[in-house]
């Protein structure tokens, strides 16, 4: 078990990945109910991305979380860690019992991820704007040590308002880090409102292109698009870092959250809403079985 490697491009159907994304949503609402408060809609916009990364694209060794040749995944938008915890338990990074401690004092897993506490977390996050820099360091380390792992960094779109992101974007293209992949969960909203009403971040593709990045722009809640984009990443030797601009819907997968994504950035479902969400998601999962 300890040396079992999950390779890149594992066989999984699109239907299974769709169900996995919905499973992540169900697990998320359960964990948030346990903790008393949580980030629903921004986790839901990322669910298909996390499902495709962890159940198909990333090269992993759950029994050996610090394996030097693993692909790295950094959760720049650390507030969606709630959606990642059940995935790491399911893959065997830690016992499912960890999930019962979520939100409690002394728990290794909390609202934002801590690499010192939770197996499978490649780097801590919570302070927006840092992780693309950290990922740049990991990608440089891969080159310096002659390893072929890839480093993936999932950022929010509001996070791109942090200036440090663009310092990292400059450095990554300067060093031709083709082994670095940024994924922007472009759900259009930050904590306080529509992202580009606060400070316009568009046109994102052109901005990254002008910084020397290869740009892929996709529907980030569409499993075939996410899967095929991750399957067909450019050869790192091409020498440009890659950004996947994943156009997503904040609150995706739950109708009333999609209609009011802002209201569900941070909150707690009441019992009736909880039952409605479970019913909506499970009905969809049954359909795709």
């Amino acid at each position: 078990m300890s040396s079992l490697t999950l390779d890149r491009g594992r066989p999984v159907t699109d239907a299974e990945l769709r169900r996995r994304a919905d499973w992540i949503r169900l697990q998320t609402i359960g964990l948030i109910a346990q903790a008393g408060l949580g980030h629903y809609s921004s986790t839901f916009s990322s669910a298909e991305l996390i499902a495709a990364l962890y159940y198909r694209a990333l090269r992993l060794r759950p029994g050996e979380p610090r394996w030097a040749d693993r692909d790295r995944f950094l959760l720049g938008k650390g507030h969606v860690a709630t959606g990642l915890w059940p995935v790491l338990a399911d893959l065997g990074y830690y016992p499912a019992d960890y999930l019962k401690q979520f939100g409690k004092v002394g728990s290794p897993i909390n609202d934002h991820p801590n690499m010192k506490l939770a197996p499978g977390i490649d780097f801590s996050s919570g302070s927006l704007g840092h992780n693309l820099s950290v990922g740049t360091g990991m990608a440089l380390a891969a080159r310096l040590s002659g390893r072929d792992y890839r480093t993936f960094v999932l950022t929010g779109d509001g996070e791109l308002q942090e200036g440090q992101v663009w310092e990292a974007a400059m450095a990554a293209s300067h060093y031709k880090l083709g082994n670095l992949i940024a994924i922007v969960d472009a759900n259009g909203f930050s904590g306080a409102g529509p992202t580009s009403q606060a400070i316009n971040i568009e046109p994102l593709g052109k901005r990254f292109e002008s910084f020397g990045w290869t740009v892929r722009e996709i529907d980030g809640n569409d499993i075939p698009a996410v899967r095929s984009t991750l399957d067909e990443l450019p050869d790192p030797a091409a020498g440009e870092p890659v950004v996947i601009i994943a156009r997503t819907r904040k609150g995706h997968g739950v109708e009333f959250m999609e209609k009011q994504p802002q209201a569900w950035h941070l909150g707690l479902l009441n019992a009736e809403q909880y039952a409605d969400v479970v019913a909506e998601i499970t009905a969809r999962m049954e359909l795709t079985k």
Partner: protein
Amino acid sequence: MTEQPTEKKMVDVFSDVDRETAMTANPAGYAVAELGAEDERIVTMAADMSNTVADFIAKFPERYIELGIAETNSVSVAAGLASAGFLPYIYSMSPFGMLKTAEQWRTDVDYNHLPVRLVGRLSGLAMGYFGTSHYAVEDIAIARTMNNTTVLSPGDPASTVSLMRSTADLDGPVYIRIAEGVGKVYDQAPEYARGQWPRLRHGGDVTLIGHGMGLGLVAAAAELLFSRDSIEADVFDAAYLRPYDEQALLASAGRTGHVLTVEEHSVVGGLGSIVAETVGRAGLAVKLAQVALPDVDLEVGVPAELYEYYGLTPGNVADAARRLVGR
């Protein structure tokens, strides 16, 4: 032809040209070139300060990572490198090192216990008349609140090399504050044990403690006090500011009853605060005094003049000690 000024002038602290040997002019750069030969995990970065690691770059060009004038990015990139097994040394101008990157240092390096080293050159008032934007007199106050960071402030070139060597294998973050306005204090640097303060002189009348340029000042002041007034000072090198030598401090303070701290740092949050907090917690009845920079808007000028203006001179330190002991 205009008359040449005779007063003190700005010294070129940006290049090592005409500044003795690399060892004395740029000990932190000298040390990392030596350490780099012994440990392939060591990589360096320098935010527009590559001259300070020129020797390292010449020897190990593939292990120097140029990131431009981007200190915050440098700290987070270094954290990523350290998480993958490397030992990054970041060289910066002090005001743009610990001060500008405090949050990146805390969140990415300190909280994660990663072995990144931040070397702050040109600390304190070293950049003098360039203006207060270029001062770093609050960096120790910030650095010493970081739970896992070792904070060092060597007081002479040989001890800079010694301290960097003794922390080279440390599996955790290190902040190394470099004072530029220091001369030789040690013929041979002491062996620094972690968190311990070497004693330069034994005495029972007053405890004098300094770090950075403060070390040379307390050593010189102790000579003056003894030769002129037969005041015997107990003198310590506080190069280790975190962890620090609580045992030596309390033993000496309890014996002399008077402690004077000297530092090219704000009176707030530095060595003076460490001493006050420690003797206060221990409940010792001890008289304390500080020679340090006031917590007001600082004047701008040539460093050598600023040091006199703010009393960072052996004579003023000796005077402060005399006032403290009432002689």
